[in-house]
């Protein structure tokens, strides 16, 4: 075990996979000599060369389109989109091309591309450096969507994504890049996709979340504990395909659920989670499923702290659910 930040852990996964599999290539803007704007790929250009750590011209549709072609022809590309807020020029390449190759060719052509991209708020980045667009990609048949909340999962989930047969949108909570530190297994380490993690067990309410808000959830759960409310916190890790069993098992036991994310409320992933919980655990529910989310507004600059769900808002939802 070594103590690492999330940035270091993701770097570690990239370096190890590049070492063990010569088909792995990285491509994106400023990822080569500069090591990426968040320094995730620092040193990889010098170590693996500019043919495998590729600085591309500034065009997201080109980065993703090129990655697709590389994957069709036998490489294992990992594309970096500098901020997820810049991913929309590549939206068609992602939803109608990348996600659909397997289906539209009935398995003849597959594009196992991983798209890594910093997501979420908390860095005073305003609208174009803070968004949480995971729902678009969860809604897109053919994509897997992953978001780690710890350095160990950052490494393990990315390694699994890079070895897997399907395209993966790998969302990196940028607020945690250097603030999340933790023990990370050294060497070869993969965390299977599709498995949630119980962060803490509890009996009264299931608090279901992912990414940066896992830490908000832990804080809220600790405070609720002082009030005598025993909160179970679940980190989904893989958003889609969802670990439905873990969610249902928890809610069946607690009878209450609060879902939490930074993304806007309407048609956010929380809406899907809420619907699934009431479809699959209706008779166990003692209260409506509560949602704590960002607002249905563009992501603000000055009012960022207000926009982002904090422990107090989560605590409010926990209390309301328990006292329903």
């Amino acid at each position: 075990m070594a103590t690492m930040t999330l940035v270091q852990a993701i770097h570690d996964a990239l370096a190890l996979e590049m070492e063990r599999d010569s088909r792995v290539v990285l491509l994106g803007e400023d990822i080569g000599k500069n090591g990426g704007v968040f320094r995730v790929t620092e040193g990889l250009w010098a170590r693996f060369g500019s043919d495998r750590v590729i600085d591309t011209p500034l065009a997201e549709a080109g980065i993703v389109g090129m990655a697709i072609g590389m994957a069709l022809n036998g490489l294992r590309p990992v594309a970096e989109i500098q901020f997820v807020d810049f991913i929309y020029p590549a939206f068609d390449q992602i939803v109608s091309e990348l996600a659909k190759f397997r289906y539209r060719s009935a398995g003849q052509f597959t594009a196992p591309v991983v798209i890594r991209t910093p997501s979420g708020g908390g860095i005073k980045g305003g609208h174009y450096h803070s968004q949480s667009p995971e729902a678009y990609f969860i809604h897109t048949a053919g994509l897997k969507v992953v978001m780690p909340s710890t350095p160990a999962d950052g490494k393990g989930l990315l390694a699994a994504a890079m070895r897997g047969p399907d395209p993966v949108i790998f969302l990196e909570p940028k607020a945690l890049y250097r603030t999340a530190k933790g023990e990370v297994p050294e060497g070869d380490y993969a965390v299977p996709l599709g498995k949630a993690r119980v962060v803490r067990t509890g009996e009264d309410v299931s608090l279901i979340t992912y990414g940066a808000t896992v830490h908000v959830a832990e804080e809220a759960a600790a405070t609720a504990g002082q009030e005598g409310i025993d909160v179970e916190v679940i980190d989904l890790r893989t958003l889609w395909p969802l670990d439905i069993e873990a969610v249902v098992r928890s809610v069946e036991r607690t009878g209450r659920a609060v879902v939490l994310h930074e993304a806007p409320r309407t048609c956010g992933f929380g809406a899907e989670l809420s619907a699934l919980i009431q479809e699959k655990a209706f008779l166990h529910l003692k209260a409506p499923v509560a949602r704590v989310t960002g607002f249905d507004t563009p992501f603000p600059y000055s009012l960022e702290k207000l926009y982002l769900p904090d422990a107090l808002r989560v605590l409010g939802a926990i209390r309301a659910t328990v006292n329903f």
Partner: protein
Amino acid sequence: MELPLLVALREDGSVDPDLDPKFDGGTLLFLHRRMIFLRALDEKALNLQRAGRIGFYIGATGQEAAEVGSGFALKEGDWVFPSYRDQGAALLHGYPLSALVGQLYGNSSDATKGRQMPNHWCDRAARVVSVSSPVATQLPQAVGAAYAGKLRGEKSAVIAYFGDGGSSTGEFHVGLNFAGVFRTPNVFFCSNNQYAISLPFAKQTAVGSIAVKAAAYGFPGVRVDGNDILAVVRVTRDALERARAGEGPTLVEALTYRMGAHSTSDDPTHYRSEEEVEAWRRRDPIRRFAVYLKKEGLLTDQAEAALAEEAREEVKRAVAACEAAPPVPPESLVEDVYAEMPWHLKEQQEWIREPVKE
């Protein structure tokens, strides 16, 4: 900026010695046969659609020289990123006719399980990549495939097809720009058939030529008479050779004309005159080549008629074999979304098997 239009087959039926690919008689007749075959395929498919036996079709009538010429120039191991009108090139590169017709039917004879509407086919073994409807999306993908081959030190080229409409897209710019920067072994083959559905070429771009745009990306652009099969083969072959030799990409613009509708859902009388179509009919690529072959003593009127009949028979046999196949099984709806079927699709597959639970 003007680029010369390269023409091999002259009006008088002679060939420019500088552009003559110098094929033997057998090869020349093969090219002619393939063009006739494509025309027969279009005729049959249009009839099938009108009779309600297939849902849709996109023909390439009038563009046979561009299709067959460029497809013939490919070598085994080259990749093809086609648009929905490039069945001709795909067939030349090893895509079996039976698979193509099966795809038109979208039944269990379709290797792609009826997943897409007609003309959106693919064949992994032939390296003919799956077609999508949004135009020019395949251009940056073709750059990635070429990059992969180059990284492994292979000597194969990647050809990507698109039309004059596709040249207006962001993906055209992105694809060609990336190819220029990375000097990938790509050939960008633009069939400039003068129309993007209803929009004439003059309204697609203000510069009058697609090929000149290559200058902006740092590699050569070539303008070729797309109704001249000998010139098309020659120009495409040279571009592919350049790519395989590591000399980087080429943009080829083949000037041709879409004699038919954009698709079976389109009626071109809304936007162009019969006089215009008639003028291009006189430049029919098959007739033009036949004049040359007859002048060379390689083809007679009688043999020509027999070829058309043979082609119709071949298409008919493929149609008969595919039409009888059963529909795709309902359960297949949820297959191939992921490598392994996740729980939610298994659940949805159950709803297909048992829509009403007792």
